[in-house]
């Protein structure tokens, strides 16, 4: 895959679901690969459930632009109900991709994407989260799927890195570490598998 000069990613979620946290974690992950990063939220009304947007820029060069992203390489949708109310593919590059948290297949959700012609990946982050964590925390699986699709970092490095940061973050709750790791691994595998299928089709 040709190395892109700068990667721009837009996250759509609802307040309280962790889309902002996922964007900041992605910035963290990319930083560890030695790249320049930016991760920032755009706040609307500050309440649970309101649509929120978060952004990432990842680059080999220092990043100076401080505006929102209007022509992203990738879009991540953490809450599929937004597909009905927000034009999530606005400006999305046709050679990019959209990653959606939904139990449906890519073909099933494509009609909701305003004619978007690029790659569509779906990950059932809710199911993965319920199975591994017993609660619906879709942001960890969506982060893993995003790393897999964008190829920001190799699988093993990402997994090792996240284990270290969970061990630090959950030092007082070690029982949740394994569940979070399973959520990441499952989502990564789902996305990676879908990615290989898309590439075969493209070839």
């Amino acid at each position: 895959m040709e190395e892109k000069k700068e990667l721009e990613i837009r996250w759509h979620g609802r307040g309280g679901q962790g889309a902002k946290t996922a964007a900041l974690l992605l910035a963290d992950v990319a930083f560890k690969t030695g790249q320049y990063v930016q991760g920032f939220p755009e706040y609307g009304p500050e309440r649970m459930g309101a649509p929120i947007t978060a952004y990432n820029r990842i680059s080999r060069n220092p990043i100076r632009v401080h505006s929102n992203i209007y022509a992203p390489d990738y879009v991540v949708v953490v809450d599929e109900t937004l597909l009905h109310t927000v034009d999530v593919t606005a400006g999305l590059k046709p050679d990019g991709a959209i990653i959606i948290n939904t139990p449906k297949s890519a073909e099933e959700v494509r009609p909701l994407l305003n004619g978007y012609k690029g790659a569509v990946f779906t990950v059932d982050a809710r199911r993965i989260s319920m199975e591994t964590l017993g609660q619906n925390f879709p942001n960890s699986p969506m982060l893993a799927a995003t790393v897999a699709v964008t190829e920001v970092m190799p699988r093993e490095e990402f997994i090792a890195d996240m284990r270290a940061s969970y061990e630090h973050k959950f030092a007082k709750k070690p029982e949740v570490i394994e569940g979070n790791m399973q959520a990441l691994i499952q989502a990564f595998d789902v996305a990676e598998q879908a990615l290989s299928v898309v590439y075969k089709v493209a070839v």
Partner: protein
Amino acid sequence: MAIRERMSGNEAVAYAIRQVNPDVMPAFPITPSTEIPQMVSTYIANGEMDTEFIPVESEHSSMSAAIGAQAAGARSLTATSSAGLALMWEELLLAASNRLPLVLTLVNRTLSGPININCDHSDGMGARDTGWIQIYAENNQEAYDNFIQAYPIAEHPSVHLPVMVCQDGFITSHAVENIELLEDGKVKSFVGEYEPEEFLLNPGKPIAVGPYAVSNYVMEAKKNQEIALENAKAVILDVAEKFAAVSGRHYGLFEEYRTQDADFIMLIIGSAAGTAKQAVDELREEGYKAGVLKLRVFRPFPAKEIAQALKNCKMVAIMDRCESYNGNGGPLGSEVTAGLFRYKVMIGAVNYIYGLAGRDFTVEDAKEVFAEMENAMIAGTQPEQYRYIGLRSQEADE
């Protein structure tokens, strides 16, 4: 060796506060600056610094307590945004006129109304005539670096004035970006210990702070304060030079980006300067001679230096992230054009209002401004003054 990290603007300032370890920090929370006192409290609770943290009931009190502590002889600071700064108004004037070198870390946010939490410079610009030194940052790195330079500027014997270190709310305060940090020891030795010459808790040399002054004396006090602000210019440059020696990062009163041979220059403050630089690079590739003058120090206002820097260009676009309701433009527009006239630099100038309450400012917006300047120059017309960028129109909404 510099420490390579990634953190938000608020994290960067809190990190710098821990390294400087001032004596007293009274604070009251307000978005988007809340994280700063929150993170400092955590550092204190973890035993990583021993600043006396005073939770107070309002910003009127946080600035009052900072003034009291500083007058007593303690190195003090507080943090705020927007309405919090407005509530400090009376105390801001007291801090400066009593010549107290305390530091305020301001996370710029619009003022009501309509009520909104996002960035513009209304708060800082509203306090521009309170006698404080004001230094603005483009990103987290500059917010960190400016904070470290603040006390050496404020406490200099020829200055003795408070310093407001400003960064853009959310755009830099909540954006995680790469940063290079200095080691704790380097910061500590750069800032040094606070040794006030005169202070209230000094039994050997009693003084009064804030007494009534009769008209025979007030005007001289005010003139002395003005002289101190003028002195600050040289001190800011001197501190920047010393800072460059330890950090390798260079600062001035403003940054000139590709302005040397520029026909058209955008004069701008804060995070949008980076966006403007990107626009300049793209325009330069098309052979268009554009440049950016990013103002770092707004108080003292470097009118003469700006006039010098602009004298060879054809036209300047002066960008205000603030409406000043005078019917004649923004604060930066008014002061820059006054400076150009005073120093007989008769170039074209146009004042834009942009980015109010977090309205986005893009590379395309910046390019549009340059295109408008060029079109006016080609047509030989004076561009329409005092314009708004990115304003919704009735047609666009329909």
